[in-house]
């Protein structure tokens, strides 16, 4: 019997600039999460990224592929944060992230993200990994360039399996 899913968990709309946004107490009753970020970005640009379960250790890696309208590129990264997208300038950007098997305890956590910023960085796809098998209960989202401006929305959805 099919099971209705893709459950909206929470949407946060910034009423003022904020350096981070946190989804906490995420229940382990689903299998995947989908995070949607939409809005203006910090002027100085940089990476849209997250930390899972407050882990700020060097336990994250990523591979990204970017097209900016004139060239394409790819890079691999190892860092202390889970990268989703790279923005340039304050123009509106949108980022959609799938966090796979976030509640599983037998595998690392992989994210697949697609981001676009038509007036800035262009379009990109990222695959990122948190090298930890713990279930994810907290996602804190940051921007390398500083505060997210007022009005940016962060929506979190959950999918059963």
């Amino acid at each position, binding site marked *: 019997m099919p099971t209705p899913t893709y459950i909206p968990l929470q949407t946060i709309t910034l009423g003022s600039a904020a350096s981070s946004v946190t*989804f906490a107490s*995420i229940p382990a009753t689903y299998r995947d999460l989908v995070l949607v970020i939409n809005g203006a970005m910090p002027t100085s640009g940089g990476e849209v990224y997250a930390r899972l379960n407050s882990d700020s250790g060097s336990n994250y890696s990523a*591979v990204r*592929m970017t097209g900016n309208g004139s060239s394409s590129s790819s890079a*691999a990264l190892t860092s202390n944060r889970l990268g989703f997208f790279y923005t340039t300038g304050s123009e509106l950007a949108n980022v959609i992230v799938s966090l796979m098997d976030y509640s599983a305890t037998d595998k690392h956590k*992989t994210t697949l993200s697609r981001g676009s910023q038509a007036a800035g960085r262009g379009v990109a*796809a990222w695959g990122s990994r948190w090298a930890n098998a713990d279930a994810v209960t907290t996602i804190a989202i940051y921007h390398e360039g500083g505060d997210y401006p007022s009005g940016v929305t962060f929506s979190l959805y959950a999918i059963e*399996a």
Partner: protein
Amino acid sequence: MIPLGILAAAGGAVAVGSYDLIATANGTGSSGTITFSSILQNYEHLQIRYTAKNSSTAVDINVRMNGATGSVYARHSLLGNGSTASSTAVTSQTSIPMVDSMASSTTTGLTSAGVIDILDYKNTSKNTTLRAIYGQTGNINRVFLTSGLYNATTAVTSLDFITASGNFATVSRFSLYGIRSA
């Protein structure tokens, strides 16, 4: 604090049945094929969400529809491998080859992941196409955007995900979802 999702799951905010879980299949460690058969025909699109790991060294997953083994498939890919971005295409294939779509590593817990959309799967006036994003980091670095073609107008009633060789490790998981039209 009320856990996230409890209110939404119990309330009327969810459009019930607009996105349904149809089935989930897990790797057994002894089979190189994951199959969804007798797929319901009451949705508009399908989505497959997976995490996968191989028990040998091959890292490709091949997608086959309706068990068709003729040269009726094609694929375009855009690849980022950590140093360059490139594009490839193949035609007249016996399945849609999703290159490097499965992790092959001795690292415990490391898997690849992917999300595949199969559009208008039951429409008998269109050839069936899919699009996918998938990737992995660790043993190798890969992120792909892929489109695939099943050059037939037959409604899709079964899907096979077949490793190029070896088997799906038990940590592998494939879930099939149906998306309704408005």
